[in-house]
């Protein structure tokens, strides 16, 4: 088909692949690759630290392989046309995260630190493996139960309420390490913000799908920008106020940035109006400066960002984490010190969660960090590609929302530990230690795979009509 004459594009365009739609065998081959790489890394860490292949190599490899295998079989059965890359990429990141967490478990410094603080040291890697298993189980449940992502559209306003409850809940629980992002129920601590990001993506896409025409068309043009009407500014101001409230009451910079950023991205995609991006950036700048002027927690984060090596700031904030993280990235150089041979454990607190990326930076160097960021980039790209291929506007917006949430999270954490932006307490998807994060990110991948299965499913061929066959009229 020639479409060279087309002069305008529309937000409803779909892009489909001409090749064979089901790529399950490609996915299997990539999955094997994605399991072998972490096993290699695991052996490498063992050889570097203890001079011997770690005894848990076989069980670890089998465990990760089993998880990947279950994921693959569920996709093969319940989403046969899904994107072939999402599952292997997520598996690889999860496996690499497990290896680095295990590597930090071996660090005498961190073991000593845990004994000083809590009286005993317990390794985090087995727990993380269990969380990964739960994550894969949740992923499987989503693919089995959610037959069609359009069902989620029915729960637009319910998901708004649920997301608000999840976001507000941590206010009523005590702050952990200066940020109120945790709730504890019967001994378990959950980070509800991780789940809220998925649920609020459902609300944003359902809401903006209905309202996008009003937001896009009813506007005046002024200096090349479309100025929306006052009443249409309502939703963006509400979300803006909400994200500022999160920042003030929960002192959580990351979640606040994530929600506002995701809303602006989905709003832009839904309306195709650049003015929303301009408004969004202006409003977040105003909000951030405003809150930073009176909130001490934010001020100390900004101070640690601007002067990470100043003795005064380190004494004031009580931690040299940012400085240690920057030193880790610096000493890694281009090719890194090799797995198990760095000193990133000097970061101390949160070395295997918020700051895990510094270990990648030191032990794999710039080359490794680039590869890891590219893998994250590929996950986001597959999400956006799914949105392009999706036929229904809700699926398009949901895929964009979820993948932009993922992208913003990687940017906020990566930028924080590298000193590009002030640090905020978020976790690197899949690699950082933390149950809520791993489970929520597997759920996010599950929804993306469901949308991509619907989007890549080949159009049914026009069927002949059996009834008409029998009652054919023969004309003279």
């Amino acid at each position, binding site marked *: 088909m020639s479409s060279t*004459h087309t002069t305008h594009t529309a937000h409803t*365009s779909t892009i489909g692949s001409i090749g064979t739609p089901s790529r399950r065998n490609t996915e299997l081959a*990539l999955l094997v690759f994605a399991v072998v790489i972490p096993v*290699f890394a695991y052996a490498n860490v063992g050889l570097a630290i203890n001079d011997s292949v770690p005894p848990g190599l076989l069980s670890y490899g089998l465990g990760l392989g089993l998880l990947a295998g279950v994921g693959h079989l569920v996709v093969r059965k319940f989403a046969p046309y899904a994107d072939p*890359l999402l599952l292997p990429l997520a598996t690889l990141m999860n496996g690499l995260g497990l290896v680095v967490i295990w590597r930090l478990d071996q660090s005498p410094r961190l073991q000593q630190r845990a004994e000083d603080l809590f009286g005993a040291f317990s390794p985090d890697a087995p727990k993380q493996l269990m969380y990964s298993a739960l994550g894969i189980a949740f992923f499987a449940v989503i693919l089995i139960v959610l037959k069609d992502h359009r069902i989620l559209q029915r729960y637009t306003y319910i998901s708004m309420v649920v997301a608000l409850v999840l976001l507000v809940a941590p206010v009523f629980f005590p702050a952990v390490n200066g940020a109120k992002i945790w709730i504890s129920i019967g001994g378990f601590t959950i980070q509800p913000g991780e789940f809220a990001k998925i649920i609020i993506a459902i609300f944003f896409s359902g809401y903006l799908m209905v309202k996008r025409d009003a937001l896009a068309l009813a506007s005046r043009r002024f200096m090349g920008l479309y100025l929306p009407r006052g009443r249409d500014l309502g939703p963006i101001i509400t979300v803006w106020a909400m994200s500022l409230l999160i920042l003030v009451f929960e002192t959580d910079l990351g979640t606040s940035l994530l929600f506002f950023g995701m809303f602006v991205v989905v709003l832009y995609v839904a309306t195709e109006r650049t003015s929303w991006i301009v408004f969004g950036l202006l409003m977040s700048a105003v909000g951030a400066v405003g809150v930073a002027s009176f909130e001490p927690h934010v001020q100390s984060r900004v101070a640690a960002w601007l002067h990470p090596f100043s003795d005064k700031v380190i004494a004031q904030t009580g931690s040299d984490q940012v400085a240690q993280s920057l030193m880790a990235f610096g000493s890694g150089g281009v090719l890194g010190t090799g797995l198990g041979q760095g000193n990133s454990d000097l970061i101390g607190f949160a070395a295997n969660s918020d700051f895990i990326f510094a270990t990648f930076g030191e032990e794999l160097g710039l080359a490794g960090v680039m590869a*890891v960021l590219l893998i994250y980039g590929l996950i986001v790209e597959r999400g956006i590609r799914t949105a392009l291929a999706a036929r229904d506007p809700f699926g398009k917006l949901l895929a964009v929302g979820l993948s932009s949430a993922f992208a913003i999270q990687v940017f906020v954490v990566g930028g924080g530990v590298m000193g590009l932006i002030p640090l905020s307490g978020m976790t690197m998807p899949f690699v950082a230690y933390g149950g809520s994060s791993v489970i929520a990110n597997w759920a996010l991948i599950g929804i993306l795979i469901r949308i991509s299965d619907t989007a890549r499913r080949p159009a049914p061929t*026009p069927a002949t009509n059996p009834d*008409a066959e029998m*009652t054919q*009229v023969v004309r003279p």
Partner: protein
Amino acid sequence: MSELTLTVMRLGFLAVLWLFVIVAVQVIRSDLFGTRVTQRGARRDGGRPPAARPTREAPPQQRGGAAGRQRRGAPTRLVVAEGTLAGTTVALQGQTITLGRAHDSTIVLDDDYASSKHARIYPDRDGQWIVEDLGSTNGTYLDRTRLTTPTPIPLGAPIRIGKTVIELRK
């Protein structure tokens, strides 16, 4: 462990990691070469033959006979066969399906020739599915005939709204 072995493993690991990235990019190469873009308002300059499906007269009266045959042959889903939404399916569960450009339609048509409330498809008392034009500008066609009254839909008969073709399937 000797320094040399560890250096080889370190570089080997980076190489393997990058190899994975390159293989992954190779897998999606088909996205760059050989995609099909369906655009709203795209002109089709005869590149594709205009739906040369043999049209057969399927008299709607055939349902009158046995009720059992009617139930057995009842359509279970609505399929968009052509147009920008091609491939979309909607399960038929006894609910009314509205078609049009309006956002509250069951199937939101993205078709320049569709009206905002274009047509509706609903089951009558016997469970036979009926299509009714809701006073659209450009009309609704069942096979080649423009609808003027609510008309029963034979299984597999194409309902045309602009460039969109909808069929009921079992």
